[in-house]
């Protein structure tokens, strides 16, 4: 096979890429002497100045605890925290800000629903439906509540391309089905799940639906009302926001009926040793001092993303994905894992006879950062019969030149291994 010259095509017109890249200080550095090419956005995205400055500005000017004291800084901190909640609520189409609970991230959001919503209504023999594309964080919390109650998990199978096999989907539902939990976008393969259609089926059977939106919110417009789900969970750090902050959106009728997740300050209305009265949502689920700066940073990330437009970002990333997928065909021995349509900008692959960790190390010496391993999706790896994959995942600031660097790096991998 021959090396092709990189294609010179205009970058997507809707984005001023140079300006976008200038917003992200971390991108402008060298790694092992080469300009950094950051393609591990599925793990975490980089942060724009707007977010970094929101965090720093909060700590420089407004820092205080929220919802407690009467002094000026406390008022400012509370306003900033609640303003962030409003932005997040609007961003995903919530009916009211109070439907948004701030959590540490997607994982905590799912655990919260598993323990506070599902656990009390789960009995032995009940069933929870998951899909074969889930991240461990959307498997293990359900497994924990199922183990405790004697409930069981049922799994929607995955085909050769990495799409869900939905022919018999409806037959999974029965009188014992208590929950459907699924990813919006597969973190391992990029498959975009037909969440709206699947939610419709679940609703017909009166089954509540949780969607793990960690890989979706930064790459397409999300409207929880249009999807029709009951809970939607996502992390700040995968959408240009800080780590340690995320959001759980839930229908108010559910949130009001749910017991607290953790006990402490902030989540109560009245406490005595005879018993406590819990605060209404979302405070009921935010025990202790929250990650106020994180929430402020997440609010800034939402504003940043809205200014670009999640759909415009997604279109640019899909263009990169198509280009990368096409160019990857040049590499001898490369096999793409996950070719289902529609697909978000995630390119997972294996190189025949070369372990993903060796691929990752060699790419790193070329300044190219990709993720290697099982991607916290061991069932997906088992489905495709591979112990590990390498994954390039794209964000709004990536370029075709960077795809070329990835491809050149993969030639280097083959060279080192004598192919």
């Amino acid at each position: 096979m021959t090396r092709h010259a990189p294609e010179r095509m205009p970058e997507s017109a809707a984005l001023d890429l140079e300006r976008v890249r200038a917003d992200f200080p971390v991108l402008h550095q060298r790694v092992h002497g080469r300009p950094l090419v950051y393609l591990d956005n599925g793990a975490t995205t980089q942060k724009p100045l707007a977010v970094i400055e929101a965090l720093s500005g909060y700590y420089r000017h407004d820092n205080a605890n929220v919802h407690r004291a009467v002094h000026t800084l406390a008022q400012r901190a509370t306003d900033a925290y609640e303003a962030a909640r409003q932005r997040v609520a609007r961003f995903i189409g919530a009916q009211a800000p109070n439907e948004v609970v701030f959590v540490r991230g997607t994982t905590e959001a799912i655990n919260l629903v598993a323990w506070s919503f599902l656990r009390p209504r789960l009995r032995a023999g009940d069933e929870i439906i998951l899909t074969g594309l889930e991240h461990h964080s959307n498997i293990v919390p359900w497994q924990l509540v199922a183990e405790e109650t004697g409930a069981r998990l049922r799994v929607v199978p995955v085909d050769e391309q990495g799409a869900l096999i939905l022919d018999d989907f409806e037959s999974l539902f029965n009188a014992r089905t208590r929950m459907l939990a699924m990813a919006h976008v597969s973190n391992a393969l990029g498959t975009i799940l037909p969440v709206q259609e699947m939610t419709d089926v679940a609703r017909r059977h009166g089954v509540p639906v949780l969607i793990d939106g960690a890989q979706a919110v930064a790459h397409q417009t999300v409207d929880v009302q249009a999807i029709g789900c009951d809970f939607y969970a996502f992390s700040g750090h995968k959408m240009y926001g800080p780590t340690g902050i995320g959001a759980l959106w839930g229908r108010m009728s559910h949130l009001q009926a749910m017991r607290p997740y953790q006990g402490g300050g902030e989540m109560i209305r009245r406490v005595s040793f005879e018993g406590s009265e819990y605060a209404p949502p979302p405070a009921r689920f935010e025990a202790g001092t929250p990650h106020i700066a994180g929430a402020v940073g997440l609010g800034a990330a939402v504003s940043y993303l809205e200014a670009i437009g999640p759909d415009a970002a997604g279109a640019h990333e899909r263009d990169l994905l198509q280009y990368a997928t096409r160019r990857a065909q040049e590499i001898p021995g490369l096999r793409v894992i996950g070719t289902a349509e529609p697909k978000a900008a995630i390119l997972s692959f294996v190189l025949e006879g070369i372990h993903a960790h060796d691929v990752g190390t060699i790419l790193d010496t070329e300044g190219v950062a990709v993720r290697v391993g099982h991607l916290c999706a061991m069932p997906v790896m088992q489905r495709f019969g591979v112990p590990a994959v390498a994954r390039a995942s794209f964000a709004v600031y990536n370029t075709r030149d960077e795809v070329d660097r990835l491809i050149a790096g993969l030639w280097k991998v083959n060279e080192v291994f004598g192919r």
Partner: protein
Amino acid sequence: MNDLRELYEEVILDHNRNPRNYPKKPEGTTHTAHGFNPLCGDEFQIHLRVKDGVIEDVGFEGAGCAISTASASLMTEALKGKRVEEAEKLFEVVHDLLTREEQVDDDELLGKLTVLTGVKEYPMRVKCATLPWHTMKGALEGKKETVSTE
């Protein structure tokens, strides 16, 4: 490329392409242990036949990256015919070679294993190289639980 070649030495690439004593479980195996690094997916079984304090034969099964595979392969070559105490000493020396700041000057004992020196420059990969060795040590100690270096 130069520093990469220190990690991916010819000897390492060769042992990765054609692992010695692999896949093999010696007849009359007396000691076996399972090594697994779940984050990487590197997974090996190390088998030893020990008689009168001497490692008569050794083999391994499983799969992993080039570094862990080559490390396991080189290890099996180095261990054959050694006394158990010598194997334990070799474990210590290889461990130092991979994890200690100071240079380890034990070339005589290490022999071909000195090619593993380059791994030290890649901290994320040290666990790959040490997995087979810890698994071997676990086998000699009769460990039943899975060994991991993550």
